[in-house]
């Protein structure tokens, strides 16, 4: 069951500007991988018979880069299930804004990827479309809720994955599957045409094999396209990296802790300066996010389900019931508290350029595990997955998970870098430098 994912696709970065780049040939290879592996990994819910692409794609900036799109993004004329039985027969009548942008700029969409039902969960064990399994070990989860996009990228079924992130749903599967996952500043990428989980906390995000593809695609999606030659790392020399002294490092799996420490040491050797920081009230930010997200999800699904909530998977149904039990005063005061919490958080960036944390407390857990033991304490896999990512959805700050080594059993581990709101491109260029440093040291 344990194996390294066999991604035989040559890295896009090396090919993209060369004469040997042949997108149609690449698509054919990717379709073969889907055909061979999708029955086991369940990365895709719907595979398009041929990619959705404009005929003039070769002349456009994305030049036929292929995308697997999480099945919450509407694409006109194709089904959008959101991973739910409830929507299994629905066909979209419009296309989500970011998907339109991808197609207009030469991207090619080859299908809709699997997710935790309605993006409301972190394991990607989907009772209706199959459990989306980890590419390194099929007894383990891919992580969610954008796990299908992460697996598709890791296995070479597409070049780039599109996901959504409300508590960590891009960064967690990226960490579990050994790929890059980026959640930009809140509102930078439009959620228009995306089935919501929580309209205040949802972020559209990008998953890719390396930071390079994420920078290219993000620059295109925000309307400031970079040419490949313009994608350059920032120097790590004297870069101030914040290492939290509270909350984020309190409880970690031993291998995650070791990988994080090793990663920091590598960055220090490259000239970065480590600064200890306290993120005030961060545990309250996490609870605040939870109140807002659960209440909004309950409000949305009360309307969407129209009395058919019993047809949802049990875990999602139970979360919606918990959301229904949130008093209006709690929801409204959580929204009001957000302002103070964001202001407190942003203060840390007077001392540092970027904050670093382990993305998750654990590597990918087994499919049958509901709790994991860390340092003798039993905690839920949900907490172990989301604890370090969810505060940044409340803060609306850009955050990226990049691979930072493996456990002795070969499971990937991710490091999360977080920047101040609005400084997404700076964060991405730092991530490019960090990725290079980690690759050189491995």
């Amino acid at each position, binding site marked *: 069951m344990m194996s390294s994912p066999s991604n035989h696709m040559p890295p896009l970065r090396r090919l993209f500007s060369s004469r040997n780049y042949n997108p149609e040939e690449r698509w054919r290879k990717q379709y073969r991988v889907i055909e061979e592996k999708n029955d086991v990994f369940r990365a895709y819910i719907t595979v398009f018979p041929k990619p959705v692409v404009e005929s003039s794609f070769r002349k456009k900036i994305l030049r036929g880069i292929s995308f697997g799109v999480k099945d919450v993004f509407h694409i006109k004329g194709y089904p959008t299930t959101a991973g739910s039985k409830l929507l299994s027969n629905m066909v979209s009548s419009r296309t989500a804004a970011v998907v339109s942008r991808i197609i207009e700029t030469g991207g090619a969409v080859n299908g809709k990827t699997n997710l935790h039902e309605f993006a409301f969960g972190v394991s990607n064990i989907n009772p209706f479309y199959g459990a989306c399994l980890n590419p390194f070990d099929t007894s383990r989860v891919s992580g969610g809720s954008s796990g299908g996009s992460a697996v598709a990228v890791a296995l070479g079924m597409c070049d780039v994955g599109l996901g959504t992130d409300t508590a960590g749903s891009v960064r967690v599967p990226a960490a579990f599957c050994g790929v890059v996952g980026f959640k930009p500043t809140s509102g930078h990428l439009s959620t228009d045409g995306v089935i919501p989980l929580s309209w205040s906390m949802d972020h559209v995000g990008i998953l890719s094999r390396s930071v390079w593809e994420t920078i290219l695609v993000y620059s295109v999606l925000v309307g400031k396209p970079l040419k490949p030659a313009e994608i350059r790392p920032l120097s790590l020399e004297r870069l101030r990296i914040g290492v939290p002294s509270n909350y984020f490092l309190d409880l970690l799996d031993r291998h995650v802790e070791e990988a994080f420490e090793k990663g920091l040491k590598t960055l220090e050797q490259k000239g970065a300066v480590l600064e200890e920081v306290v993120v005030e009230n961060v545990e*309250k930010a996490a609870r605040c996010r939870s109140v807002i997200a659960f209440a909004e999800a309950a409000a949305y699904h009360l309307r969407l389900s129209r*009395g*058919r909530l019993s047809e949802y998977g049990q875990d999602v149904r139970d979360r*919606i*019931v918990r959301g229904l039990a949130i008093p209006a*005063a709690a929801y409204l005061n959580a929204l009001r*508290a957000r302002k*103070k919490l964001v202001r407190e958080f942003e203060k840390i960036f007077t001392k540092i350029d970027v904050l670093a944390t382990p993305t998750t407390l654990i590597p990918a857990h087994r499919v049958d595990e509901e709790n994991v033991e860390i340092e003798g304490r039993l905690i839920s896999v949900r907490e172990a997955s989301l604890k370090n990512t969810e505060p940044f959805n409340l803060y609306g700050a850009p955050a990226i998970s990049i691979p930072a080594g493996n456990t002795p059993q070969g499971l990937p581990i991710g490091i999360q870098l977080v920047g101040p709101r609005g400084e997404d491109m700076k964060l991405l260029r730092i991530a490019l430098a960090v990725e290079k440093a980690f690759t050189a040291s491995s």
Partner: protein
Amino acid sequence: MLEREAKILSLAGLSGEDVNQLFRQALDKNLEILAELLELVEDDEQPF
């Protein structure tokens, strides 16, 4: 209270003691969180 929670849950098409109990437990927890949140909310300027 039982009747009220049953009404909310029936809007979602749910019924039964297990789901009622889940709702009640969640409400208790959410009230605790509400108390905690009140400490974080900043007052608008007050004339007293």
